[in-house]
């Protein structure tokens, strides 16, 4: 195993712990928007899609690259917009605090 790979595993594991910690106390009211927001965040694969697509060879490589970037881009833009729409409903006229179970 290379040193780079080990560093990456370290980053991965620490991020896993942060992931657990950060949403540990999320109220069930927000499960839907949270699921949708994390759904948008894994659209980060778009960065990877751009990296491989940016050096793709025509013609087959280009077709695959377009499909890859399209899928990832769909994930990013759709994901964030849909979450925004959901959360917009949590902004009523009167301040809306969640009732704890």
């Amino acid at each position: 195993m290379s040193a780079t790979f080990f560093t990456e595993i370290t980053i991965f594991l620490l991020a896993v712990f942060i992931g657990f910690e950060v949403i540990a106390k999320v109220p069930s009211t927000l499960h839907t928007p949270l699921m949708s927001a994390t759904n948008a965040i894994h659209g980060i694969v778009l960065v990877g899609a751009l990296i491989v697509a940016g050096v793709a060879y025509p013609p087959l490589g280009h077709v695959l690259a377009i499909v890859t970037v399209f899928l990832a881009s769909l994930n990013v833009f759709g994901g964030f917009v849909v979450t925004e729409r959901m959360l917009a409903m949590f902004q009523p006229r009167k301040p809306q605090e969640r009732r704890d179970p």
Partner: protein
Amino acid sequence: MTVSLLDVAYLVSGIFFIIGLKLLSSPKHARLGNRLSAIGMGISLVAVMLCSGFVSWNVLLIGLALGAVVGIAGARFVKMTAMPQMVAIFNGAGGGAAALVAAADFFQHIDDRLLPADASIVILLSACIGAISFTGSVVAYLKLQELIGGRPITFRGQQLINAALLAVVFIGGWYVVTSGVTHTHELLSPLSASVPIPHAAPPNLDVRLAGNASLVRLVFAPTIEAFLFVVFAAALLGILVVLPIGGADMPVIISLLNSFTGLAAAMTGFVLNNTVLIISGALVGASGTLLTLLMGKAMNRSLTNVLFGAFGAPVATAGLSDTSSRGSVREASADDVATMLAYARQVVVVPGYGLAVAQAQHAVRELAERLEARGVVVKYAIHPVAGRMPGHMNVLLAEANVPYTSLYDMEDINPEFSRTDVALIIGANDVTNPAARIDRSSPIYGMPILDVDRAERVVVLKRSMKPGFAGIDNLLYEDPRCVMLFGDAKESVERLGLAVKNL
């Protein structure tokens, strides 16, 4: 090693995602959280486009623009009730992209015949998890959109086939990682500049070079066919695992697939040595897993049970819920129900997916206000999985300005039903089915339900006698204290409101 601007951008993005997620756990700051995450995404995207020497810009921009247009249009115009399938399809897109990125990387390296074992493992993981997520999400979408039956699709030997497929993925994966041309040679040693890398090394050629042993790597060239075979097996597994899942388990499976795509993205990060992919993928994978477990807990079902229990399969309906033994149901007029409601002391409204479909939440609030004006206490009972996603109903009622103090969770409202005169069920079905409490043969036996049958009277507003999403009959409707008011939920509630007003 010098730090590039790109690495800094990735780190900043990662921090934005973490803070964004943290803010998403409170209703007050959730919107800000989502926007911060979006900004984090933007930083990484702009940075990678500026800093990498891309050649095929046209390809990138076509793909980006297409995805943005379709994604934003879909997200803007989708009805709130169709949200779950929208999330499923975006999730599948991400999984598919992760799988394709991994495959592209594999094909690029197979030409070089340079692929260390650790690299090939993460490529395979990324491609397989991404493929499972893609096909699984597409099936979930088709089921939720009712393009294929929402009921579980089961056949004999299903578990056996799934197990066999999983074995194929593992054995095939092991073959891809270990087989092919195996030889060791120096990659990173300073000496390697003077040593020609054996690009077209014949099989089993063992090139041993002096130098630092830790720099000696295993290099091989597995076949493209074997790789594709493994990935297709994983894709098939995704289809077969989601097909038998139905009913209220759908949100759990979407959340699970969400965490899968997160993992696939993290693996893609390992493939490309890209930190922001690793960080965000791990965040989503972890939070998605936790969310999945929380939802399973709300329904009193373990993940294994959700995945392999074939919830709502039509096999277990032989008991009390047998259709042939079904008693007759009593239908009531809007005026009857209005009188019942107006002279009650306490009414508990049980909203369900049917209310959401009919967009009846505003009409319900108006009816409740009329009743409250007559001195009736009105409460709302929210089941943890009301609607098609947890928290779905809270979103819809908040939209209609129902005061949050009137919304009660299941544990708080269940003891109240015995003191309730009328339980008004609007478009909810499975979560009110007493079979979950009394019928051991029922597929929903053991699921926590709202004990509406303990109320003095029960009124069910329903479009037709069609069974609910889980595909089982509701014992409640045969109860002599239960009456039905058929029709569109919104129209029925409006009729009730008018009738109460005219009393």
